[in-house]
């Protein structure tokens, strides 16, 4: 059984290389086929790998492959090596599967873009980096992928770089991610200096012996790692880049800023569960940050008018749920939600992209409405995704969100659970607000957009339909109330087994059913409220906006967090940099360089006097020189 899974990241890289080598000779069709083909192949390989893994006995489901040694310093060896275990298999399947669908969708969405090839080049590069991240079997290689996805995110957010807002957003995302990455790097170094290795296996095996439970070292290291996760996964306090990242093309928002890259932080925390469970304090921080982000982003999402920004805040909020799960020790639930979220959030973004495409780049919900009949397939699939994210059974979002809430409750984090329930209500509310404003009610389209409305081409609709099916059935692998744990649990057990914090108490079936009923009621309440406010009595919305104008303005302006960051951090840093530039750069550095130049100029001005142009003078100097040398030797 050759471990072909190591080729999964190599395939998209080959796509990048071929696209670079063949250039425009491929044509649009060729580029599209190449880009989708390599990702499709990677998906098939991932399926094969997962099947192989499933065929093994549970305790053997971990295959390592070392491709080559990257570098060696003393005893330290950095290998380019990959691991296939239930966790990385799930991640690889989600990344390649959703990624493939989004690639196909992009061939339709970007069909008229002049930079078609560049777009797919970046997409493939992103797939390579993301797959390296999830398949790596050591921190160093994971960090390569971690930085790679950050770079691709930057490139793709600023894909339409001629738009200042897009260039600015790309820069913002990159810088904020760098802050997180710095934490990640420091965490990695801390782990290495204590644990002596960066390989997952060796480090996690050594961790319980090296670190005392709850010791300062492990708490510090995991907090630093989590700082990296907050940057990549857009959590408090580093979440503000994600809504701005919506400046990128919509498939990018679906792929990178909803389904895959932003979940890297969750994956990393889950992967390092052996370390995080050694630091209960960090887990508390993770849970609290997750809960706070989930609630904060959900409230902001309620008042946004840009269809993509609503989805962006929704993503931030849902990522908060995943961290909530990790924080209470329910890593399986976190990964489960990661998977289902990838399905329905990718679908939501792609659906939003389809709407934007149909309305000639209109993104404002206030200028939509009544699209249900005019975009039938987009409408149907969007409705499925909206119900799924709202958490109505039997769609995917219900199962994963319910599991998170269940585990939060069962582990005794009642505050986190309560926030989760309120968040679920808000989620249902803002998602159905979006749905109602875009697809229901009277049409508020501009005449020009109205004229051009059309359903998207099959290359865009087919991925939507597939994702809609996944959004329905994706949660069925993890039903609640299953005796002996549900299939998804059993699949991930080899990875998450053991560890002191992993124990989540079993609840009595009655309690569990009550919790389920509560979360469904919260979701239904949110939906009902949204329909009442935005469809039946539009006056209520306006009335509420007037009556609570202070609250509304705070939400609309995202609690002025961006302004706060600008004033507290960006502005001072910018001014300090300016001062440094004016003083240190212009005076000192340039001064030294220019000083050398001026000195040489002065010296040569004197020396130039000897160069008269007369051969006789030169001969005279020459002779005098020879005489001087002769005299010198004669005297010594």
């Amino acid at each position, binding site marked *: 059984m050759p471990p072909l899974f190591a080729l999964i990241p190599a395939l998209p890289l080959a796509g990048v290389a071929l696209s670079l080598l063949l250039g425009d000779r491929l044509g649009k069709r060729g580029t599209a086929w190449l880009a989708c083909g390599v990702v499709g192949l990677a998906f098939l390989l991932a399926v094969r790998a997962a099947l192989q893994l499933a065929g093994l006995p549970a305790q053997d489901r971990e295959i390592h492959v070392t491709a080559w040694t990257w570098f060696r310093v003393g005893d330290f060896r950095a290998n380019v090596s990959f691991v296939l275990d239930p966790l990385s298999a799930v991640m690889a399947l989600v990344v390649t599967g959703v990624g493939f669908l989004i690639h196909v969708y992009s061939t339709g969405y970007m069909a008229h873009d002049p930079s078609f090839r560049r777009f797919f080049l970046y997409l493939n590069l992103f797939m390579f980096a993301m797959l390296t991240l999830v398949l790596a079997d050591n921190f160093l290689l994971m960090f390569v992928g971690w930085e790679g996805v950050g770079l691709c995110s930057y490139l793709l957010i600023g894909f339409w770089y001629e738009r200042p807002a897009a260039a600015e957003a790309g820069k913002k995302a990159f810088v904020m991610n760098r802050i997180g990455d710095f934490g990640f790097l420091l965490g990695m170094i801390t782990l290495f200096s204590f644990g002596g290795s960066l390989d997952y296996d060796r480090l996690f095996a050594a961790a319980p012996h090296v670190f005392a439970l709850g010791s300062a070292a492990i708490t510090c290291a995991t907090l630093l790692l989590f700082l990296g996760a907050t940057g990549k996964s857009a959590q408090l306090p580093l979440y503000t880049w994600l809504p701005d990242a919506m400046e990128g093309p919509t498939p990018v928002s679906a792929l990178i800023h909803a389904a895959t890259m932003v979940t890297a932080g969750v994956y990393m925390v889950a992967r390092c569960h052996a370390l995080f469970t050694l630091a209960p304090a960090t887990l508390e921080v993770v849970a609290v940050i997750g809960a706070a982000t989930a609630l904060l982003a959900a409230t902001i999402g309620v008042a946004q008018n840009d269809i993509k920004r609503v989805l962006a805040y929704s993503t931030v909020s849902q990522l908060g749920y995943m961290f909530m799960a990790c924080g209470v020790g329910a890593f399986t639930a976190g990964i489960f939600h990661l998977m289902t979220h990838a399905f329905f959030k990718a679908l939501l973004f792609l659906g939003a992209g389809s709407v934007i495409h149909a309305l000639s780049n209109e993104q404002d919900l206030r200028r939509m409405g009544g699209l249900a009949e005019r975009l039938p397939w987009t409408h149907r699939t969007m409705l499925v995704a909206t119900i799924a994210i709202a958490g109505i059974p039997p769609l995917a979002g219900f199962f994963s969100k319910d599991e998170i809430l269940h585990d939060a409750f069962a582990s005794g984090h009642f505050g986190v659970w309560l926030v989760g329930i309120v968040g679920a209500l808000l989620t249902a509310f803002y998602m159905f607000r979006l749905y109602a404003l875009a697809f229901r009610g009277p049409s508020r389209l501009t005449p020009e957009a109205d004229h051009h409305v059309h359903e998207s081409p099959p290359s865009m609709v087919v991925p939507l339909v597939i994702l809609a099916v996944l959004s329905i059935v994706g949660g069925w692998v993890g039903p609640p109330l299953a005796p002996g744990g549900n299939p998804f649990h059993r699949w991930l057990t080899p990875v998450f087994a053991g560890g002191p914090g992993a124990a989540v108490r079993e609840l009595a079936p009655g309690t569990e059913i009550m919790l389920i009923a509560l979360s469904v009621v919260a979701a239904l309440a949110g939906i009902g409220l949204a329909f009442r406010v935005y469809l039946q009595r539009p006056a209520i919305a306006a009335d509420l906006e007037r009556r609570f104008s202070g609250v509304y303005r705070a939400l609309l302006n995202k609690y002025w967090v961006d302004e706060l960051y600008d004033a507290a951090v960006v502005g001072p840093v910018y001014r300090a940099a300016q001062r440094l530039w004016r003083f240190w750069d212009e005076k000192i550095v340039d001064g030294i360089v220019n000083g050398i130049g001026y000195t040489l100029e002065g010296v040569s001005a004197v020396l130039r006097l000897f160069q008269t*142009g007369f*051969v*006789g003078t030169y001969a005279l100097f020459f*002779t005098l020189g020879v005489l001087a040398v002769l005299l010198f030797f004669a005297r010594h």
Partner: protein
Amino acid sequence: MIPISWSLLLSAVLFTIGVVGVLVRRNAIVIFMSVELMLNAGNLAFVAFARHLNSIDGQVFVFFVMTVAAAEVAVGLAIIVNTFRLRESVFVDEINLLKG
């Protein structure tokens, strides 16, 4: 047999004449001849030493010097001829454009 000191003295005198010629004359061709004079003063010293030391080395060196001198004459005269064509002059103090 002529003592070596005579030969060396003659060589030194010829060399000095050459140096002075290079320094004081303005005509490029005369300067050139002066350079040749210096080279041949050196040759004379070589030959004198070869004879004095009963060694062939000095004479071999002379052949090398002659070869180099021949090459130098070829290049030098070519430069002078071209300069004359351009400036209608072979006086070196009229050729002073190459300066800093």
